[in-house]
């Protein structure tokens, strides 16, 4: 698969590129000609638009945006998913599309840090376990992994650490996720702890870092796009998998085919895609995006807007309790004196969610929802309720989950942090009774 050079989110460039693309149909059969045309058309038109020459050095083999490269065509995503970034791909789901108990591929968010691998050779794919903390480096083919170790299936929430970032003020840079960078799919694979047992880890092992086949955005092969990891205790949890299936089929390419590390309860960035190697480290893994400010928050709370020195930042090791109303879609108008059914999911990085409640009076009173037990730890739990409204008018339905530690969701945007992580504020929908 060819990943095009995309010019970011600049609407002028998008607009020009769309013109360029529409004009290229005449050249559609000659890719080289078309490439040159695209280049000339976009850059030439941009220059004309601003009335001046622009010097835009396109690296070799890079192309300006081509519009057929949308997440629907490329990855089979639902048409209503929200594109946050196309280089790298970052796409989220609106809340009402996440209604399924098991998130289907087409409605699952994409958070990539680099370029999707251009070729995947399943037969030749190997997983290598190395690092200071292993007795001897060892490699497995995919077939060996599947035959040698027991197979396990879990429903596991993956949530981007920056989900909800768009609500922080002062704004935090990065993809401006709203609520939909979260999923709960059925993941099948082998336990990481079974593999580590087979390899044999030493007493100095403290962390496991992953290495994937994705390309760095610069296409510099010596750079890793992302190489994060988990503490050894997390690596040894039963639900920490090296997965080769999602929802009963091969993992979709954009979600990490053929092998993905799944460590739910942490920011989803530790659940590395396209895994080729795991390094058992004698220190906190120091791969790409392990250092602050990436996936770190101030060790002590700070006033919004504070510049925090790196040494005062701590790596996020748990996602907070959270919930999402997935039915109805916000904006529903219902007839007076009818009951409104609401439903959604609640999840936590702790053991389980113990309570989900709703409020139609901005938190003045809360009413319990019916809450399902989790399929397994780190699966989200469905909730539902029938809501009645005292009179006609505008309402917001808010939902709040509480986990087994007694911690619940804030109604306000929680503690500001420089990169805008861990916003678990209550979700709400607008309802009008007419």
């Amino acid at each position: 698969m060819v990943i095009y050079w995309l010019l970011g989110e600049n609407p002028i460039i998008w607009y020009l590129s769309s013109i360029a693309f529409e004009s290229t149909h005449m050249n559609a059969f000659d890719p080289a000609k078309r490439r040159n045309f695209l280049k000339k058309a976009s850059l030439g038109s941009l220059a004309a638009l601003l009335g001046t020459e622009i010097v835009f050095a396109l690296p070799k083999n890079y192309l300006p945006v081509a519009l057929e490269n949308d997440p629907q065509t490329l990855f089979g995503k639902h048409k209503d998913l929200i594109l946050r970034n196309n280089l790298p791909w970052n796409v989220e789901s609106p809340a009402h599309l996440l209604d399924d108990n098991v998130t289907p591929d087409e409605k699952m968010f994409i958070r990539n840090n680099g370029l999707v691998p251009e070729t995947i050779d399943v037969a030749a794919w190997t997983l290598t376990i190395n690092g200071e903390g292993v007795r001897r480096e060892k490699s497995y083919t995919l077939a060996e992994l599947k035959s040698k170790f027991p197979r396990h299936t879990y429903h596991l929430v993956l949530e981007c650490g920056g989900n909800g970032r768009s609500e922080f003020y002062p704004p935090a840079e990065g993809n401006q996720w709203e609520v939909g960078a979260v999923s709960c799919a059925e993941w099948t694979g082998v336990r990481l702890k079974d593999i580590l047992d087979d390899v044999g880890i030493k007493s100095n092992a403290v962390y496991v870092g992953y290495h994937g086949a994705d390309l760095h955005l610069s296409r510099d092969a010596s750079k890793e796009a992302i190489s994060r990891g988990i503490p050894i205790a997390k690596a040894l949890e039963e639900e920490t998998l090296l997965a080769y299936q999602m929802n009963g089929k091969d993992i979709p390419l954009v979600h990490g085919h053929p092998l993905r590390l799944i460590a739910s309860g942490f920011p989803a960035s530790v659940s590395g895609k396209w895994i080729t190697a795991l390094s058992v480290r004698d220190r906190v893994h120091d791969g790409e995006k392990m250092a602050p400010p990436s996936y770190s928050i101030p060790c002590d709370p700070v006033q919004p807007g504070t510049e925090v020195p790196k040494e005062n930042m701590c790596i996020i090791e748990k996602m907070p309790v959270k919930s999402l109303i997935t039915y109805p879609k916000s904006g529903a108008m219902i007839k007076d004196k009818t009951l409104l059914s609401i439903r959604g999911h609640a999840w936590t990085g702790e053991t389980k969610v113990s309570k989900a409640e709703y409020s139609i009076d901005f938190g003045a009173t809360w009413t319990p929802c019916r809450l399902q037990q989790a399929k397994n730890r780190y699966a989200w739990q469905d909730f539902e309720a029938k809501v009645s409204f005292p009179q006609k008018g505008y309402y917001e339905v808010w939902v709040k989950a509480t986990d087994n530690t007694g911690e619940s969701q804030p109604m306000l945007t929680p503690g500001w942090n420089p990169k805008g992580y861990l916003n678990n504020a209550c979700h709400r929908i607008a309802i009008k009774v007419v």
Partner: protein
Amino acid sequence: MRKRLNTTYYLVIFALGIFMLVIIGYYVYDSSVQEKEGFIEADAPIPLEEIENRIENGVHVQTGLVDGEGLNLVIANCTACHSAQLVTQNKADKEGWKNMIVWMQQTQNLWDLGDQEEKILNYLAKYYAPEQAASATFRRPPLKDIEWYDLTEQ
């Protein structure tokens, strides 16, 4: 004798006149040059060929204007007379921006913007809207862009 005196007198007056004209001319020229230099430094529109297109974090670097559809028209028409800061520090809805444009046309020699006016107004109303400043300071702003629909099936 008397005639010669007159001739000399006229010559002196003529020379003095030339001298004064030169002096006045110099000052007029000098002050005009200085004014022009000062004007270029502080107030002149950015020559079109010097507009950089660099956009960083969604902002046109040279002007500080938000990147979006209509940016080029705002740069071309508005910064011809005043700095972009006069735009970026203000917030108004479409009607408010229209009022400012009408005022500039009536009193500040702003030209007829023709069919570009609508595009400029859309840009200004979108990126320099009054609610932006207010909502940013809310910890949870009011829900916005609600698409109302009838819900019957339950």
